[in-house]
């Protein structure tokens, strides 16, 4: 009893102290570890502003770099119990190696659980729970291209890799860069390979399962090896820009928007950035699926949205949950779309897209409506090696043959699988 009185007194004293502080600390602060230069940042800022206006909670951003470096930073900080209250991360295998049940707050009992698509939830699930909400629309991977150049050269959207390369030849002959390579940001090098997965899946449907079970390899599966070959081919045939190692993602975007480069192997998350940096050019930008070897199997590889999760070490779990609920609420989604059209459909049920979506998004929706989609490999298998970006650069500059790169990646994967102690490795 005495102790209780004491703690009550202490609480009273503390609250008086807090209240008398120069900045009345009745607003709570939570910290969100987010990617630097995220394409969706404007939309996210709009959600945050709306949230802060509604609740006495402020959100402060901490920024992390993209690519492997940002992933690794998160791993190091997880190991050190040094996590913020909210975290942005890739969904799928990259997220699932983070030991979700141990490190993150389960959201399956929250009201928001009913609002999310199951296809999304499985990519952030472990055991019986799931651990994140979608931060962005569903991205599609393929070729983002400049329609204006296509029109002026009289080109047609290619349905096979052969048609694609013949388009590239014509573009090259016209003195324009056919394919943009931005290997200074090495994560962009892997998009061509990752977006090729629809084609792998179409010809070798068992690949994902066998790959997880250590029965199939990139080097020994011809359809999978094609990805490394395609990255190399655009280099050896002289389709890519000069100075790929000095070209960044931002520069690539500018090249694409201006028509200085025509094809950029990328995912649709780039559209929001193009829209905010080059608003007058967004209608010149289109999308087509990465062409495979036969025209009747032509479809798009879908990513799952990056997710926002709550690390268990957070001291403000309640406030963080409030934010996640708000984010996927009608109000949150409206705020998200208040700064511009979204670059895809949402993994949140019942969200209606505005009528005026970007042309490239319309291109993607055509595939979706025709049911010609497959998830990217990282959402089907937990096995993803940490060095894929660099290995794709090696293939993309022909430092090694495509086969050597595939073998190298198979070994890279083995290291990760062993560390995860997956069965069969």
């Amino acid at each position, binding site marked *: 009893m005495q102790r209780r009185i004491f703690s009550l007194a202490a609480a009273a004293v503390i609250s008086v102290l807090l209240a008398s502080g120069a900045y009345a600390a009745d607003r709570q602060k939570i910290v969100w570890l987010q990617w630097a230069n995220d394409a969706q940042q404007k939309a996210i800022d709009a959600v945050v502003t709306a949230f802060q206006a509604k609740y006495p909670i402020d959100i402060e951003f901490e920024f992390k770099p993209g690519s*492997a470096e940002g992933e*690794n930073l998160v791993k*190091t900080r997880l190991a050190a119990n040094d996590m913020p209250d909210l975290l942005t991360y890739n969904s799928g295998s990259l997220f699932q190696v983070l030991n979700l049940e141990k490190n993150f707050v389960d959201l399956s009992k929250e009201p928001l659980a009913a609002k999310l698509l199951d296809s999304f939830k499985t990519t952030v699930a472990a055991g019986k729970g799931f651990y994140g909400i979608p931060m962005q629309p569903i991205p599609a991977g393929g070729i983002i291209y400049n329609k204006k150049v296509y029109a002026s050269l009289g080109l047609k959207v290619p349905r096979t890799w052969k048609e694609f390369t013949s388009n590239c030849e014509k573009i090259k002959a016209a003195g324009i860069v056919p394919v943009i390579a931005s290997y200074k940001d090495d994560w962009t090098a892997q998009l061509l390979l990752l977006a090729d997965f629809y084609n792998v899946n179409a010809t070798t449907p068992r690949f994902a399962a066998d790959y997880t079970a250590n029965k199939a390899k990139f080097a020994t599966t011809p359809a999978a090896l094609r990805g490394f070959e395609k990255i190399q081919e655009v280099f050896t045939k002289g389709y890519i820009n*000069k*100075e790929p*190692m000095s070209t960044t993602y931002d520069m690539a975007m500018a090249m694409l928007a201006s028509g200085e480069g025509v094809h950029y192997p990328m995912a649709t998350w780039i559209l929001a950035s193009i829209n905010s940096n080059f608003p007058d050019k967004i209608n010149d930008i289109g999308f087509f699926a990465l062409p495979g070897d036969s025209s009747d199997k032509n479809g798009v590889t879908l990513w799952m949205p990056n997710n926002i999760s709550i690390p268990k070490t957070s001291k403000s779990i309640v406030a963080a949950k409030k934010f996640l609920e708000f984010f996927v609420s009608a109000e949150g989604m409206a705020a998200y779309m208040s700064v511009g059209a979204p670059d895809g459909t949402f993994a949140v049920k019942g969200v209606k897209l505005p009528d005026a979506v970007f042309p490239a998004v319309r291109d993607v929706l055509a595939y979706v409506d025709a049911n010609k989609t497959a998830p990217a490999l990282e959402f089907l298998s937990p096995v993803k090696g940490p060095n894929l970006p660099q290995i794709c650069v090696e293939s993309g500059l022909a430092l090694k043959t495509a086969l050597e790169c595939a073998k*190298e990646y198979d070994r890279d994967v083995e*290291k990760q699988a062993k560390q995860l102690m997956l069965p069969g490795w």
Partner: protein
Amino acid sequence: MAGSTLRLYSYAFFLPAGIIYILFFIAPTFLSFFFSLTIWTLSDWRFTGLDNFRIFFTEPSLSIGLRNSLIYAISTCALKVVLGFLLAAFLCTKLKTRGFLRSLIYFPNILSTIAVGIIFSSLMHPSHGLINTTLAFFGIQGPDWLGNPKMALFSVVLVDVWKGVGVAMIIFIAGIQAIPQHYYEALSIDGGSSFDKLRYITLPLSRSSMNSVIMLAFIGGIRSFDLIWVMTKGGPGFTSDLIASIIYKQLQGGFYGLSTAGNVVLFIIVSIMAVPLYRSLTKVEVDL
């Protein structure tokens, strides 16, 4: 007498330093031998024998670091010795501006490696960078310094030398200044040229400073990490990865056992190289 004052020099004086040094340097070094043999999650470990070392030496993306670190150490070391010596000899002549020049050449040392890396990443930009635009002015097509896989490592070597040659120079200057003037006077009387002075007096009598420079530059080079990390991150691909950058990548990737194995590899190389290098270098000095 000496025996009685010995009481003044209690080992207790050594204790605070000893504890810090053992706890934060020696102990981790010994622990690394053990943990290099495990798959390690920091909270848990599983013994895997020499598996980590097998991976380190057989995986091309890892073993390339070994080769690159040796190239890096040897070339930075050689350039610092040669340029440092020549600069020192030149700046020990009766130049009026030598004080200014010494300070100027030493100056990059006080800049942080990160800053230097960023500055040169910009200067070495293939089309806009100041270096290539200057070369283009003279009609030379400059290379893609950091983007060309054959070039990247060597470009960073040049930057390392730019930053570090001042130290080598200062050490050589100290050595040269300690050479008694009458040696030179004797040679002048015999009609020796300036080049003879350099060849027959300055160079041989700078051996001990040269030892220091070689040791410092080589050990520094083989352990080097921050400059390459800022400038190339080991790329393109893995072509400019050093042992230390590989250790860091494995650490970041959560492969703690593998990362520690890299540390042990580096430890072994440093020991193998340092001991005989030090011996042979000091022996040369004795032979003189």
